[in-house]
C-alpha cells in the first residue's frame, strides 16, 4: 500500500500526492503555496488521529506532522474530510458545525477549498 492507513482520507490524500506531480498539481503549488496539516480521526476528533501534511509549497503529501509550523492545521473526522474534499460539504459549514477545527492562520485556512483535491474516478 502506498500508505498503510485504512482511512478513506488516506486514499484521497494518496491521490493528492500523485496529483501534485501533474501539471494541474503544479499550478496548485503556485496558486496556494501553503502548508496544511490534517489531523484525521476515524470516529471522533482528537482520538486516534492520523496526521498528514499537505505541503503545497513543495508539492508533497506526507504522513506525519509537519516539521515546523504549518500555515493551518485542520482536525476533522475521516468521514467529514472526505465530504469536504469531494465538495459535498462546504468547509465553512464544517467549521461552523464544529465538524472541523482549525488552528493557525485563518486566511490560509480559507484557501483550503474542495477544488484543490483531485476527484476519485469510479470503477
Amino acid at each position, binding site marked *: 500500500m502506498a500508505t498503510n492507513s485504512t482511512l478513506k482520507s488516506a486514499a484521497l490524500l494518496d491521490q493528492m500526492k500523485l496529483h501534485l506531480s501533474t501539471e494541474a498539481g503544479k499550478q496548485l503549488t503556485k496558486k496556494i503555496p501553503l502548508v496544511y496539516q490534517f489531523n484525521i480521526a476515524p470516529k471522533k476528533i482528537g482520538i486516534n488521529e492520523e496526521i498528514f501534511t499537505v505541503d503545497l509549497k513543495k508539492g508533497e503529501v506526507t504522513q506525519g506532522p509537519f516539521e515546523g509550523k504549518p500555515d493551518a492545521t485542520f482536525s476533522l473526522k475521516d468521514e467529514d474530510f472526505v465530504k469536504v474534499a469531494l465538495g459535498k460539504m462546504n468547509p465553512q459549514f464544517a467549521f461552523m458545525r464544529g465538524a472541523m477545527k482549525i488552528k493557525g492562520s*485563518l486566511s490560509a485556512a480559507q484557501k483550503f477549498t474542495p477544488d484543490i483535491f483531485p476527484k476519485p474516478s*469510479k470503477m
Partner: protein
Amino acid sequence: MPSYIYIYIKIKEKKKKKKKSCVGDMAMRDLVTGGAACAVPGSSSSNNPVASLANNLLNSSSKTQDRIKELPGTTVTGGAPDFYSSTADPTTLLPGSEQDFYHDHHRPLPGSQFLDSFRSGDHHVGALPDAWNEIQHHPEVALQPHFAEFDRIYDNGAAIQPAFDGPPQRVLSSFLHSFVESSHAGIPFHPTMLPALGLSQGDKQCIRDRSSIMARHFFADKSEDFINSQVNALLHSLEIDNDFRAKGPVPGRFRELEEYWNESQGTLRPGGPHSADGWVAEYNQHAASRGNPEAWIHSFEQQHGANGWVSEFEQEQMQMTSIGQMRGANLPSSAAMEQTRMLAHTLAQNDDPKFQNSKFLQFVSKMSRGELIVDDNQVKSAGESAPGDWAQEYQQQYKEAPNSWADQFVRDELSHGTERWVNEFSAGREQHGMDDDQWVNEFSKLHVDDWVDEFGHQVGEGAFGESSSDNWATAYDEFLNEQAAAKQRSDSSRAVYVFSDVNPYVGHPNPLKEGQELFRRGLLSEAVLALEAEVLKNPDNSEGWRLLGITHAENDDDQQAIASMMRAQEADPTNLEVLLALGVSHTNELEQAAALKYLYGWLQHHQKYGTLAPPGQSDSLYYADVARLFNEAAQISPDDADVHIVLGVLYNLSREYDKAIASFQTALKLKPRDYSLWNKLGATQANSVQSAEAIVAYQQALDLKPNYVRAWANMGISYANQGLYEESIRYYVRALAMNPKADNAWSYLRLSLSCASRNDMLEACDSRNLDVLQKEFPL
C-alpha cells in the same frame, strides 16, 4: 435575567477584571454605565423611572447576604462576602437576582454558567421578550424579568409543600454548582456538611443518576476511579446512598442537571418542546457554536415569532410594571384584577403545555381571580394572611435594580450589530406561522458566512482565545460527537433501498423482462423503474435486485447500487456477480474493510477457488492475505478474466494502481467487449493521474455503451483533475442529462463551474436546471 446575556457579560467581566483592580461588581457596573469605573451610584439611571423605583426598593440586601454566607463551597469564594458587605449603598447592588450572588460567590466558570443557562433558561420565561422590548423601545421603558421572580416567588411562597421552602433548595443548588466547579478545576471534590435538605427518594435518585452521568462528561479524561470518588463525595454530602435503587418518580426540580442531561443526550424533545426547553436547547447549540451573539437571537426570534404572543405579552407586562411603579399608592385592586385578567387571558392563549403549567401563569390567574393581591408592592394571598417569608423574598427579588441588566444588554449588543439583528428580528416576527423545522432550516441559511467570518476574525485576534471559549467548544463538541454517533448509527443502517415515488411500471405484467430490455438498450433510468417494479412484486428475486444494482452502478449511484446488491445478496448469498459488484461499489466509496469482505467472499464462494480460502473466519481480514489468495487463483487459471478483474479491484483498494492497471489490461485481452471493464481500467488510470490514457479507455467504454453514465461522469472527473474545467462541465452535464439523480456529478459540476469562473451558471446548477445547462454547455 436571560442567561445568554448573563453569560456574555460574565465573559466580558472576566476580561475586565484582569485590567481593573475593581472587584467583579465594579467591572460589571462598568458595563452598565459605559465604562466609567466606579461611577456614582444611580447616575446611570437618573432619567429612568423604573430605576429610581428600583433604587427606592433596594434596601434589604442584607438578608440575602446572610444567607449567602451560610452556603457551602467556600473554598473558592475569594473575597465575595466582604465585597457584599461593602455594598451598603443599595444602588450599588448589581442587577439580576440571586444567580449573581451565586456566581460571584463561586468565581464563575464557564461550565457553571453553561449549566446555569439551563436552569435560568427554564425559569425565565419572560426574560427574552423583555430583552427585545428593551432594544426596541428605550432603556427608559425598562421591563424586567419579573416573571422569573414571580415564578420563584410562587414556587417558594405557595407553601403547599413545606419541603419546598427556599433555603434548602438554594443550598442544594449552590452545592451542585460547587460540584460542577470542582470538575473544572479538576480537583477532588470534598464532602461538605450540609443542613438537612429533606430530599425525597425520587430527588435522591435523580441527583445520583444525573451526577454520575455528568461526572463522566466532565471527567472524560480522568479515570473511572476519580469519577466515582467525585460522585461519591457529592452523594455522601447529600446523604444519598450510591447503591440504593429507589424507583420513585423523577421529580423535575433539579433543572440544571436535567437540562444538561437532556442536552447531552442530544434529544431535543420532539413534538412540542416547551418554550424554555426549546430556548435552552437552541441556545446551547447556537451559543456553543462559539459565542455568536446573533445565533440566539435567531433562535429566540423564531421561537417567539412562532408563538406569536410576544407583543401582547410585552404590553401586558408594561401594565404589570406600572403596578410595580405605583409603590405605596395602592392600586385599586379591581383595576389590578382587570389587568391581570387580561394578562392571564392572553397568556392562556399560548397553547404551549409547559407554559400553561407554569407557575407564572398560575400566579397571574390567581391574581386575576382575586386569590392573590398586590398590596404595597407585596404579593399577598387574599385567602390567607401571613404571607410569610415568601413575600419578603419577593421584595428582595424585586429590588434588584431590574433595569440595569437591560442597560448592559443594550450596551453589549451594540458592539455586535444591534441594528442588523433588530431588523432581522422584526422580519422574523412577520413569519409567525413557521414551525420549528422550517426555522431551523432558516437559521442554518442565515448569515452563516457573515458570522463565520466575524468569528474567524475574533479568533484571529484572540478575542475568544481564552479558556472560556475552549470550555464552550469542548462542551459543544461533546454534544456534536454524540449527535454524530447517533447519526452514524443511522448511517450504518442506511443501506436501505429508496424507491422512486412514481413508477409507471408498477402493474406491468413482466417488469423484469422489461427491465432487462431497457437495460440492454441503455435506458438506465427507465430500467431502474422497471426493475424496481419487479423487486416490489418479487422482493426475493435476486436477479431483479442484482440487475437493479448493476443499473444503478452504471448510472453512477453507488449508494443505491450497494442497497440493491445487499438485497440481492440476502436473496442469494453466494452469487459471485453480486459479491464482486459489492466489492467494487465499496471500493468506490473508499470503504476498504467492507470491500475486502465481499471480494474475499467472492473467492470463498467460487467453485474453483473456494478451496484456496481457509474455512472459517472472515471477520479479521488482512489485505495482504486476500491479495495472496487471488494471486494463487490467477496462477491456477490465468485465462479466467474474472480473477484478474477482482485482482484489479483489490489493487485499487490498496492503491497499487500500476498493478491494478496490469490486471485490468490482462482481463481486457480476455474480454475486450466488456464496457464496464474498460471503465474500470480508465478509472484506475485516472486515479493514478494518467488522465490521457484514462480518457481513451472511457471512450472505449462509451463506444460499447453510449449511455454509460458512469463513464461520462468519469470523463468529466478526468478533465477536471487536469484543470480543464470547461471541458469537464460538458461531460458532467451530459451524464446528468442521462441521470439527473447522480448526486456526485452535481456536486462535481458545481465545483467545476466555480473553478471555470462560471458563477453565472451556479444557480442553474443549484436548481438542477438541465435545460439551461445543456444549452450552455453542449457536448
